Structure formats: C-alpha cells, structure tokens
C-alpha cells in the first residue's frame, strides 16, 4: 500500500477499524447520566455519552433513540461500551447492550436499581470500564487501505464561500475516497430541498433515485406541516440569519452549494437513522440538518471521521470522533484560527479545487491516523444529540 493510500487505525473483530480507540459509557436513559459521567471521570480513556432520552417516549421517537444509541455503540472508534441503565426505563439496558454486542463489540452492563444505589453502581461501572480501558490501551495502530474508511460530510454556518471553496474541496475528497473503494455519507435532508432532482439523477438505480426523491419530499412535507399555523409563520425560514448575512438568499441556493460537498459521483443508497451502509460508495443518510443531530446520525451510521465545512465558523466537536473543520473564508480562518483545521480560501482567490482537495485529503488521512483535530484539542463535544420526532 502506497503512502497516501493508507491510514493507521485500530483493528476490530468485525467491521471497519477505529481511528480512535475509546471506551464508551452509554446511559440507556437520562436517569443514569450522573452515574455514567462519574464512571467516565474516574477511568482515563473513557467517554460518557449523556443524553436526555430513553424513557417516556413511544413509537418512532423511541425507536430512533434505540437505533441512534445502538449505532453509536457499534461505531468503529469505540473499543467497547459499558451500558448504564436505571432499571425501569422504556429503552431496556439489555436491549441496548445486546444491540451493541451484535456489532461484535465488548459490552458490559450496570443497572443502578440492581446494584442498589448510585455509589455501588459507580463502583461496579468503574471496575468494568477500567478493565475494558486497559484492554483497549494494549492495542497498537496498524495500516489499513482507504476502502476501510467511512467519512461523514457535513456543513454548518454556511456563507457564500462554502459553495465556492470548502464544499467543492470536500467534494473532491469524497470522490477520491469513493474511487479508492471507501465510503462517504452526507445527510442534512432539510437542506437538500431545491436540489432533489440533481441528486436523484445521481442514483445508481431507479430504486435509489426514487428513494432520494421520497426522502427529500417527506422532509419537505414534514417541515411544511410544522410551520403551517399562522403563529409559526415567523419561524418558517429554513436558512439562518447568519446564512443570509453571508449572502445566501434562498434555501435552494444553500442546497445547491451544499451538495457540492458530496462530490459528483453516483449515490449508492439512502440510509435510515442508525443504519450502516451495506457496502462502500456514497450514501445519503435520512436525518435533519441540525449540526448535532446530523453528526450524531453520521456517527451512528459508522463514520469514523467527519469533515465539517463552515463559512461563518463553528467550534463544535463530537466525543471520540474527529470533526475536521474547514472553511473557504480566509477571514474566518484567521479570526477562528484555533477552531479551524483547514483553509480552503485559496480556491476563492483562484487556486484549483483539485490542488486544495489533495491537500485536504492528506489532512484527513493524517487525522485518521492520530493527529488531533482542533475540536479534539479543545475538548469540544457538543455535537452528540439524539434526533427526535
């Protein structure tokens, strides 16, 4: 394998290798958050994924929580998981633990009501997490081909440079990775309205093209229903004031600039929330555009790494998954230097997309191999956010 064609990762029993190697402490319900956080506080190499859901939910809402947390637990960057339950919640801790174990991962479980109280649950959790972190720490990185990489594509804080520079550069990277047998996933279906015909034209089969149209059409209907009342008219804009200030006028303009980050290649399929792709290629994930929900969705579909383009500049990150920030706005890059990893601004000044794309691709492989992204250095972790209905 030639340099530039590999990355260094952590081998897993099944599925893609990790580009990080963390032990997750995942509560099955928000009631277990404090116990989960205190276990993570006491064991280096672990991360608590606290969230506000897991009970008093029904139907699709509860199902999305279950799929999201199982998908998270199955992510290649996690060595293994300690599930922390309360005991009476609707998302049963055993269901979550079994769902994660089905991906071939080490899983342990602590249930507060079974252990007796907070202190005893923490004590047991620390012992289990400590043992798992010790095993994870013995692993060494090994070289893997690009076909073992799944990259999430995201944008946020869009301005007019996003569609000219940062997104096309990321699109070049996406095309390059998919051509090498790797996987790329884009989402933000709320932000694809106006670009659905172009995307449907890129489906690998009539069935995929139909799924793309259905997915975007359903999202548009859902938004129309949510903003139908007269009292919500002032809350119906799908683009933010920052987008408008930056020169983006309409949702279609934002969509057309946004889809350039998914390159120009064929789209192999549409993924449901928490669903992993069946093979390599470019996939569309059915999830809203909210930065946290979308990145969580990408992680819960197995992305080991996310590249996030931003014109206005955003500092956010995801625990255990590098989120590489790139901007096409050199002024933003200078102003938010410590938050941003890559300046695609030279494209605005006339540099070629291929030239900057190749430099970005090398950066992606370096971060995959262990170089920390800025969001990791700064401890940004606010993007973990389970989607709801």
């Amino acid at each position: 394998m030639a340099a530039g064609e590999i990355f260094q990762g952590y081998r897993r029993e099944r599925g893609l290798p990790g580009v990080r190697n963390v032990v997750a402490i995942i509560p099955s319900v928000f009631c277990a958050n404090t116990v989960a956080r205190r276990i993570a506080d006491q064991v280096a190499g672990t991360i608590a994924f606290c969230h506000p859901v897991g009970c008093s939910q029904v139907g699709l809402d509860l199902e999305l929580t279950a799929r999201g947390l199982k998908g998270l637990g199955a992510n290649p960057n996690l060595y293994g998981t300690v599930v922390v339950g309360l005991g009476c919640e609707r998302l049963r801790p055993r269901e979550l633990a079994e769902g994660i174990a089905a991906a071939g991962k080490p899983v342990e479980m602590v249930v507060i009501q079974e252990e007796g109280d907070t202190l005893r649950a923490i004590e047991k959790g620390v012992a289990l997490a400590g043992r798992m972190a010790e095993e994870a720490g013995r692993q060494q990185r090994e070289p893997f081909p690009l076909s073992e990489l799944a990259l999430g594509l995201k944008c946020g804080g869009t301005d007019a440079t996003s569609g000219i520079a940062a997104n096309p550069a990321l699109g070049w990277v996406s095309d390059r990775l998919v051509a090498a047998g790797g996987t790329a996933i884009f989402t933000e279906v709320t932000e694809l309205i106006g670009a659905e015909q172009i995307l449907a034209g890129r489906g690998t089969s009539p069935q995929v093209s139909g799924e793309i149209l259905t997915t975007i059409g359903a999202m548009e209907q859902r938004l129309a229903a949510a903003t139908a009342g007269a009292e919500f008219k002032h809350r119906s804009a799908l683009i933010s004031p920052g987008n408008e200030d930056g020169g983006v006028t309409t949702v279609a303009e934002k969509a057309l600039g946004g889809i350039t980050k998914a390159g120009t290649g064929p789209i192999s399929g549409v993924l449901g929330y928490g669903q992993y792709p069946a093979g390599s290629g470019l996939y569309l994930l059915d999830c809203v555009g909210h930065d946290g929900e979308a990145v969580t969705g990408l992680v819960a579909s197995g992305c080991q790494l996310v590249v996030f383009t931003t014109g206005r500049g955003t500092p956010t990150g995801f625990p255990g998954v590098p989120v590489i920030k790139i901007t096409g706005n050199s002024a933003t890059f200078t102003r938010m230097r410590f938050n941003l990893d890559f300046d695609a601004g030279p494209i605005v000044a006339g540099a070629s997309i291929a030239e900057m794309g190749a430099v970005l691709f090398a950066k992606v492989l370096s971060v995959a191999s262990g170089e920390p992204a800025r969001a990791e250095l700064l401890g940004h972790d606010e993007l973990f956010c389970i989607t709801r209905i």
Partner: protein
Amino acid sequence: MAKALKIDSRDNCAVVLDDVRQGDRVEVRTEAGIVSLNAGSAIAFGHKIALAALAADQPIIKYGAEIGRASAAIPAGAWIHLHNVTCRRGREGRG
C-alpha cells in the same frame, strides 16, 4: 478593482469576493474570461451581483440552476438578495 466569480457558465449572477461600494468597477471571473461592470449599490463580500438585467419573475441562476425568481426588475450590476428575490420553498411565511 473589486473581484467577483461566476460559478457556472449558465449563471446570471456572480458572487462578489470583496466588499463593493456603489459605483465600484467589478471584475467578474467567468468561463469566457474577465467581464467588468459597475456595482449599482454597495454589495458585501459573498453576496450576489446581477450580471445582466433581469425581468420580474425571471429565474435567478447560480450553480447552473434556479435558486429563486426576481420579485421585480433587477438591473445589471444590482445587488441580488432577500429584497428582490422570491423563493416559495423553505420560507412559507416570508416568500
């Protein structure tokens, strides 16, 4: 001289790459080389300038596709933004 970029050959607007004042000469990078025109008003970095006169209801083309329609006649060199564009989708209360 201020600069602007025409992204796709089918576009009828360009993105200005400097803060432009009213009356400034703007050089637009296009598929056919540099085209220059006068800015009809101040236009901020990243915002759109009309490359030709547009009639009311004519599509605004960027990235080679329609992003909205002119809500009134737009002269060449004018700033194109919320005040002279309609797009029914995604903006039910404001379009």
